[in-house]
């Protein structure tokens, strides 16, 4: 590893990391605008045109607010809480293949933080680390409600990890590799004439399980029972003020972004332009860099569509009761995922087995 390569890589990771962090203010704005639209009200429009600078205002507000630390709090874990959630969610970004590759400075740079051959497994493992933030945060703040909230939300998160693992296994079975980049490579071109060669057509149930599970994983609305204002006063982050509280939300939105990125890479062809194959694009646009640019734009477009869906679902679907939620995980999603794997295994056997 000589120095130049190192610097290139670090710059690349910084860029991608900053890009994903930018998602947070955008999402805040989209969320508020979306909620307003659904509830037929104007939403934030004071700060800048269409309230575009509202998120910045919120961010500054969080920065300047006081950060009260309750007395009998377990200091170390209390402070670590929010960051233990933020770290894993930001690590997951490394596995997402944003684009194909770019020729710069005479090198071929992959448009993703790290192209590891166990990317999907990496994604699964690191996402399972997220639980610690909730647990330690809830327990450390020495508050009955926060403890109960932590318990509930962590049991919800871990319960939904298994469906994710199963659907991931399903995808791996189909694509035959853990590397997300390879998966995206396999989703190029056209399928049956009129369909873009996406993974969703092959594993619709897998997509469905993963989609629902990812909702729970990110504590999005239908599943945001643990810190729902009405019941548990804010769940595990009741005791956190100002920026630490904001950290929770940043982590949540980053998780949202990575989740939708995963959905896109697994089922919606990643950075491929639908119906168009890369070679054709290279022919049309000439240089690879331009093609990469188009691919990245396509990737972002797909993600934003999904994000809007997330927001849309959040403000329309009512909240689950906790036991319904658990039942959904253990009673529906896991058996569905298992059945899905068995069915695809058998189908694969018939289509390809000798």
């Amino acid at each position, binding site marked *: *590893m000589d120095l130049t390569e190192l610097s290139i890589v670090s710059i690349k990771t910084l860029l991608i990391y900053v890009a994903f962090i930018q998602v947070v203010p955008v999402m805040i704005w989209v969320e508020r605008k979306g909620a307003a639209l659904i509830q037929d009200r104007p939403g934030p429009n004071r700060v800048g045109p269409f309230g575009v600078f509202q998120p910045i205002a919120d961010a500054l507000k969080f920065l300047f607010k006081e950060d009260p630390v309750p007395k009998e709090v377990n200091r170390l874990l209390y402070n670590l809480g929010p960051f233990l959630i933020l770290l894993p969610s930001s690590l997951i970004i490394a596995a997402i293949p944003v684009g194909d590759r770019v020729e710069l400075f005479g090198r071929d740079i992959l448009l993703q933080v*790290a192209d590891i051959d166990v990317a999907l497994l990496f994604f699964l493992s690191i996402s399972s680390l997220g639980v610690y933030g909730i647990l330690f945060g809830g327990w450390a703040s020495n508050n009955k409600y926060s403890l109960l909230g932590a*318990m509930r939300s962590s049991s919800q998160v871990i319960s939904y990890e298994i469906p994710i693992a199963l659907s991931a296994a399903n995808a791996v079975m189909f694509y035959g590799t853990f590397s997300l980049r390879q998966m995206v490579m396999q989703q190029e071109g056209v399928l049956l004439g009129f369909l873009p060669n996406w993974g969703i057509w092959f594993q619709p149930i897998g997509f469905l399980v993963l989609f629902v599970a990812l909702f729970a994983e990110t504590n999005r609305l239908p599943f945001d029972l643990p810190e729902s204002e009405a019941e548990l006063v804010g769940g595990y982050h009741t005791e956190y003020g100002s920026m630490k509280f904001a950290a929770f939300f940043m982590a949540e939105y980053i998780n949202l972004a990575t989740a939708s990125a995963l959905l896109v890479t697994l089922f919606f062809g990643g950075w491929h332009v639908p119906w168009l194959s890369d070679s054709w694009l290279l022919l049309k646009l000439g240089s690879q860099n331009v093609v990469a640019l188009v691919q990245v734009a396509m990737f972002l477009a797909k993600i934003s569509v999904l994000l809007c869906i997330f927001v849309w679902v959040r403000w329309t679907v009512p909240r689950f009761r906790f036991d319904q939620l658990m039942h959904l995980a253990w009673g529906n999603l896991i058996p569905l995922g298992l059945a899905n794997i068995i069915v695809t295994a*058998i189908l694969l056997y018939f289509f390809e087995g000798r």
Partner: protein
Amino acid sequence: MEAFLPIGILFLFAVMLCAGIYVLTNLLGPRIFQKNKLSTYECGVQNPLFETNARLPFKFRFYLVAVIFLLFDVEGAFFLPWALVYRESLQLGANLLIAMLVFSVFIILGLIYVFQNNYLNVD
């Protein structure tokens, strides 16, 4: 092994971000501490009982969820390597399929057992 280097770098950036947040809030945030601010937030209900021992008497259900998650997580994890090699193995015959079917039979048995005694009806 080299592929994991960028992850390390990304980890560093993330740590920098968190440290930044932590430092900024401490620097910028005002420090006006009053007694009730420092007590844990009980939505206004002054209840001495909660003062002392905030740790909730244990809800055993949560422990059970964790245990069952652990075991099913292990079983789920076994699916991953299987999925990886399943497709090629089809050329060599269906023994991997049968193996997995047997494996999933036991998982289903486990699930049925768990549901029968409704260990998971977390209230």
